[in-house]
């Protein structure tokens, strides 16, 4: 078995580590992988190149539906123009006892439960996190501490996105008709092992509970970090009057 096709993985790793443009890195990795595989099985260089371009081009064309989701941007942009983020911030500022951590823990739980019921499209980064969840998470911190540092703002936004991902990943497998469960069932079946989807999805529950606990504790500690940063900030003497 030739190891040359693994060269593309090296391209990816080096490219991402030195922070080249990711789009270029991925395209380069595809060309290197395809050409290396073709050459090592004795194809001449020209056909190795055209064959790879064809495989890559066909797969690109077949996956266009992924890019369709950007059509959501005009709605989100228009609502932002009319003050959606400001409204989301204001809404959370009016809730007594609301903190960034508590809000994100609640979102984590809701995202897990809805995903477990198969309602995976009730979330996502362009439609939920940017317009609603991240502004609310920031707004909760601002309502308690006034201004928050730029660094803390970054952390809060990053945790908002992370919470959406973690809630989705460790909720959806509890739903019996989700793609990954069907993939597992199909794969085991081709290997002569028959399992029911329910047997698989039941075993997604312990990990889902642990995900809630682990990430929940981290979000709860985020509140402590925000409080501490705000306290340190207010102690620093102002440089300008």
């Amino acid at each position, binding site marked *: 078995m030739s190891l040359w*096709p693994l060269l593309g993985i090296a391209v*990816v790793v080096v490219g*991402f580590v030195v922070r080249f*443009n*990711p*789009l270029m890195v*991925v*395209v380069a990795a*595809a060309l290197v*992988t*395809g050409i290396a595989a073709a050459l090592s099985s004795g194809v001449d260089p020209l056909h190795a190149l*055209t064959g*790879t*371009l064809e*495989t*890559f*081009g*066909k797969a*690109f*064309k077949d*996956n*266009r*539906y*992924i*890019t*369709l989701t*950007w059509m959501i*941007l*005009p709605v989100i*942009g*228009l*609502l*932002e*123009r*009319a*003050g959606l*983020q*400001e*409204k989301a911030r204001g*809404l959370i500022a009016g809730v007594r006892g609301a903190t960034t951590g508590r809000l994100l823990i609640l979102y984590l739980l809701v995202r897990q439960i809805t995903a477990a019921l198969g309602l995976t499209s*009730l979330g996502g980064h362009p439609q939920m996190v*940017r317009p609603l969840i991240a502004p609310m998470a920031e707004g909760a911190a601002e309502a308690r501490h006034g201004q928050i540092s730029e660094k803390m703002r*970054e952390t809060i*936004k*990053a945790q908002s*996105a*992370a919470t*959406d991902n973690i809630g989705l*990943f*460790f909720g959806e497998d509890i739903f019996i008709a989700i793609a*990954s469960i069907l*993939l*597992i069932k199909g794969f*085991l079946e081709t*290997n002569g092992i028959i399992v029911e989807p329910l047997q698989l*999805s*039941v*075993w997604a529950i312990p990990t889902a509970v642990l*995900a809630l606990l*682990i990430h929940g504790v981290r979000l709860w500690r985020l509140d402590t970090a925000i409080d501490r940063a705000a306290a340190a900030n207010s102690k620093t003497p102002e440089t300008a009057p």
Partner: protein
Amino acid sequence: MIGLDLLYLVGGAFFAAMALLSGADKENARRWGNALFWGLLSVSFLLGSYLSDLINGLIVIALALLAGFGAMGQGRPATTSPQERRESAGRLGAKLFIPALAIPVVTLAGTFLFKAWTVNGQHVVDPKQATLVSLVLGILTGLALAVAMIRPRPLVPLQEGRRLLDAVGWAALLPQVLAALGAVFAAAGVGQIIGHLAGSSLSDGGPLVAVVAYTVGMAVFTVIMGNAFAAFPVMTAGIGLPLIVGKYGGDPAIMAAIGMLSGFCGTLMTPMAANFNLVPAVLLELKDRYGVIKAQIPTALLLLTANTVLMYVFVY
């Protein structure tokens, strides 16, 4: 039947509008780069199904070169000031949430209804594409509601869309190109090579070593491929079935379920899962491209450990 063909026409029209508005944006010094990038993408949407695979391949190369050599600049169409937004938010109130929430609601409702909707025994909407059709319908519904409420000038929604699309830039294409990379990896047999290496490197280390190799292998291979679905068949055929099930008599359902979730821990840690990790960093305007990944790594590692323990305790 309403299916992908129609959706690609709508998408092609959207990206064509982005290209035209980019070309007309005199404030953007690199407007022609943007116009070319979104224009090529529009061509791919409108004509991709009719062009040869080779031409489609060359389109991707051209898109990557435009992105890689800095041909694109961020267009900044005029929008409202923070002060105007606060006033507008005060005026419109909670009504502002309605269009935003209409999108997921219509998407969900459509997903269920379209699968069952037949006229004379024919599906009106391609049942395989029900979710995508519903999503686009949800977006159009949300847009109609927002326009009715905000009453902007005709080009404003498209310009606001371009403001956000340009903030994302070439990264908008990354998830699709990564999916295509996955197909090239599969055609080149990358998975089999890694599965073979993983399987042959540990012949016998006992049941615990088999579990650790499988869960950690799932996570690492997912980091490489960006997708647990690609890692699962390889690792399960290479380590899971021969060792955990075959040699040590483990339960295949428990192994497979927790194995897949170990792969998801890898998804949280890799830039290769662009739509989950890189795209939100751009969307939220984080300074660190890897900010979301860094926020997820502690949870991912703890959860991977927990999965390994869970599997070892219950699988045998």
